[in-house]
């Protein structure tokens, strides 16, 4: 019984997060200006991180957690670098 509940919840959550990723990707490609694209990328990687954690719950493995941690760190650095680039025109001064 509890396995069925968890399986259904994990599948539904993956659908919802997948839809969120699709919307973020749409905004990233369509976004009227560069800052919209950067926030689209930011939303995309946060949703991807959540998707990996739900994969971890679904399969019962802990490997996915580490991948999610790496995605979080790299995403933070990339968003900061892109924002810095928008601000100054170069990343490392």
């Amino acid at each position, binding site marked *: *019984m*509890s*396995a069925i*509940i*968890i*399986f*259904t*919840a*994990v*599948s*539904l*959550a*993956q659908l*919802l*997060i997948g*839809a*969120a*990723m699709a*919307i*973020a990707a*749409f*905004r990233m490609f369509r976004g009227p*200006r*560069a*800052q*919209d694209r*950067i*926030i*689209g990328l*930011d*939303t995309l990687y*946060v*949703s991807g*991180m*959540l998707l990996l*954690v*739900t994969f*971890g*719950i*679904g*399969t*019962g*493995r*802990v490997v996915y*957690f580490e991948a*999610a*941690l790496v995605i*979080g*760190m790299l995403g*933070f650095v990339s*968003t*900061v670098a892109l*924002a*810095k680039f*928008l*601000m100054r025109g170069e990343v490392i001064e």
Partner: protein
Amino acid sequence: MMGSVVDIPLWAAIAVAFFLLLGAALTLIGAIGFLRLPSFYERIHAPTLGTSWGIGGIMLASMIYFTLSSQRLVIHEILIGIFVTITTPVTLMLLARAALHRDRAERDENVPSKVREERQE
């Protein structure tokens, strides 16, 4: 999909399902708001729904599930939660400042011009 199904009690399964769906639904609502809000400065607020309770709900679900299925306390998901909670405001502040800088450089009518107090700092 369900590789190793460990039998966890029913109340825990319901709690895991609830937090999982809460987090996923909030992430989707944030993304929809991000799609539909009209201006950039409104859009920047919407995805934070996903980075606050979206992350929080899914991390809670993961913590409950792994704690009960491996019979010991597993709370390393809290690392991601703390990390994202700290870094999201930093990135969004930087991004909003960059966008404001760009809009002011183009003399956009919709953003306020520079206030004097800001120059004197």
